[in-house]
């Protein structure tokens, strides 16, 4: 009995944790993307509009990140205790960037002088950019592998400073910018809508290139990843992924071309994110700290995992439903005269 629980609980939790991380990527992805797009969109009123599309929901989006930290701590403490020291600096930079960007939501609306306005706009944009970049670096470093002995990190502080991890950072920045642009394309009208549609074309092209490069690069990092592409059960799982990526990219471009299509580009981009995320997941499986610690080795005891799972089964649907309610309350197109602050 405990043997099966000891096997299945970590599997269930790995899936739940992956779901939470994916939700985070989707939700905070587009609002980080909005910050990154400040690079391109300088108009003050447009910027306010962009921020206002997420003002009522960004706190909730960011909460998924806190949940990720807490769940990892509770369910896979060994992973929490090895990944964080290994990624000390990228995690630190990400957190500081998220702080700066988070407070800018409030501060940029409340600052009076043009100087402080400029400062908090820069903090919002820079914070979003750095946070996104560091998330990519963290992902890349994890995929590339962390040196662990006896459950203690033994690598160097700069293992994350590798071409692969840095490239992943760039890829995530591009991806989030595309999510942000397609979100704005959906939620805004007029000039801003047109601008976002134009930007989305370029970003979609860039994203396709980065996906291709990361896909080729990843199997070359470890023999285990390569084996996933050659061994049979895994091959059946991963083989459809590239095909689906191509199909969805087609849908994305179709949506972008058709001026009457507003929601489709955003949905197609989310689909692309899902494919990339599950593709990486299949590659890494069953390791949580590649290439040494599996989800079973990283797990807290079944007593802890069960205790948390019981509540999660009730709470997660509840959370999802009132989060959806909040999005529903603030649905619809935003117009320029429409502001919250």
């Amino acid at each position, binding site marked *: 009995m405990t043997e099966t629980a000891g096997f299945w609980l970590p599997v269930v939790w790995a899936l739940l944790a992956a779901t939470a991380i994916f939700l985070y990527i989707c939700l905070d992805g587009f609002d980080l993307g909005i910050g990154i797009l400040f690079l391109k969109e300088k108009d003050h009123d447009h910027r306010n509009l962009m921020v206002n599309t997420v003002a009522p929901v960004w706190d909730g989006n960011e909460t998924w990140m806190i949940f990720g930290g807490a769940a990892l701590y509770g369910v896979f403490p060994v992973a929490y205790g090895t990944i964080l020291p290994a990624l*000390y600096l990228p995690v630190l930079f990400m957190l500081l960037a998220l702080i700066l960007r988070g407070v800018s939501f409030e501060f940029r609306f409340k600052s009076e002088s043009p100087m402080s306005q400029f400062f908090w706009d820069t903090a919002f944009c820079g914070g979003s950019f750095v946070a996104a970049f560091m998330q990519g670096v963290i992902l890349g470093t994890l995929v590339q592998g962390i040196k662990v002995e006896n459950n203690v*990190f033994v690598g160097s502080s700069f293992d994350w400073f590798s071409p692969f991890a840095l490239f992943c950072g760039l890829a995530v920045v591009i991806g989030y910018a595309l999510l942000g642009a397609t979100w704005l394309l959906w939620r805004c009208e007029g000039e801003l809508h047109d601008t976002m549609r134009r930007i989305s074309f370029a970003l979609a092209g860039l994203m396709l290139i980065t996906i291709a490069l990361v896909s080729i690069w990843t199997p070359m990092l470890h023999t285990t990843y390569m084996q996933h592409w050659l061994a049979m059960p895994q091959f059946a799982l991963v083989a459809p992924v590239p095909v689906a990526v191509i199909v969805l990219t087609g849908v994305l471009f179709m949506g972008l071309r058709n001026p009457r299509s507003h929601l489709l580009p955003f949905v197609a981009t989310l689909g692309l994110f899902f494919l990339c995320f599950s593709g990486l997941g299949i590659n890494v499986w069953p390791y949580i700290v590649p290439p040494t610690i599996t989800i079973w080795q990283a797990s807290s005891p079944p007593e*802890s995992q069960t205790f948390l799972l019981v509540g999660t089964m009730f709470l997660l649907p509840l959370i999802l439903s009132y989060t959806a309610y909040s999005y529903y309350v603030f649905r619809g197109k935003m117009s320029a005269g429409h502001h919250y602050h």
Partner: protein
Amino acid sequence: MFGLSALFLARFQFAFTVGFHIVFPAFSIGLAAYLAVLEGLWLKTGRSAYLDLFKYWLKVFSVVFGMGVVSGLVMSYEFGTNWSSFSQKAGPILGPMLAYEVMTAFFLEAGFLGVMMFGLNRVGKGLHFAATCMVSIGTLISMSWILSSNSWMQTPRGYRIDEATGRFLPVDWWQIVFNPSFPYRIVHMGLAAFLCVAFIVAGVAGWHLLKARREGRQASEQVRLMFSMAMWMAAIVSPIQVLAGDTQGLNTLEYQPAKIAALEGDWESESRAPELLFGIPDMKNETTHFKIAIPYLGSLILTHSLDGKVPGLKDYPKEDRPYSPLLFFSFRIMIALGMLMVLVGLWSLYLRWKGKLYDTPLLHRIALFMSPAGFLALLCGWITTEVGRQPFTVYGLLRTSDSVSPIALPNIATSMIAFVIVYFIVFTGGITILLRTFAEEPHPDQHGPAEDQPQRAAGTTQVSHQPQPDAGMAE
């Protein structure tokens, strides 16, 4: 030597970040409850001053809550970056509690915050009030979980230690969550959060009362209303807090006597112990210099009897003693501030009875001066309880020196500098904005975030590509 300084920096950094953080949740807990009360009273009585105050403090809440979220985000990862060994060992117990905190509280707060902030015109009064209550309940649930975890570190129960890995494994979740110091701690902290906000509100009201007086006019209804509410809180809650603190002291004496010895600066265990009003504890020479003592009072306060036995630091091995010089003062500052709050509350009752609550500038000046008193007392109390737990992270079981991460000194030094810079920028910005908000007087038809947006037909997916004539209107 090298390892020691990395440990010191890890501790210092954690204390620095959590010290900044703790202020904002406490502010949010108290303020969310205040907002719910204000909105409830508005719905019940229809008196518009309540709504004006609601909108006024809602602006404050948006800033405070945002700063709480971002500084809290740091905490949820800092356990791993700075205390990875602690996380691996205590993770099976503390991790699920923190995850429950996120699921039962953080999502609730964040999920309804948007509706509370911006939704008054979109969802109707009843639903909006429900959202405000949800946010307030969320802050209280959050406080319960985090204090339960903290209390478990102080008075661990319901665990067993795994021989092979040294991990704490849960045996009885009921005992873990409701460990012996939790009930006392949650009452003490909850009241502290309410008092923090009561004194901030009183200070803001006091400033506007003084300003109105200087300008030779009567202060507005809103200002008087919030001053009155704050003074009721001070009068009722401060004395209760003294009792709550006293019972927590008794609880600490039972479970963590070394902490009591350290915060009292007592070296020898004795009955009929005096209470030190002042002194400078000296860890090295095992004595307290320059003592000013009141006979018997120590025993009386700690044991509620004149000849009760009070512990001394020499009862404990040197390496197990908390650092008394810091505790001695943090504890005394907290007590002094608490007593001042009680006095202000009592005085306000007397003035209210005499009908002079709004005409006594000295009280208003004191209220202004004491507006950060709640937060100072809270920080001192937090230092007392956390430093008093040392040199352990899990009291008596896991040493702080065995909890730290294997991070190199340069890394943590870099991050320390980065934190100081970013926190300096962010908190200066935040406090400036808060002060600027406070400087405005709450007035009728308060222009709050809830109403300065036009009503619109929701749910439309139609697109108009017409240029917006009022594009310049956004703030």
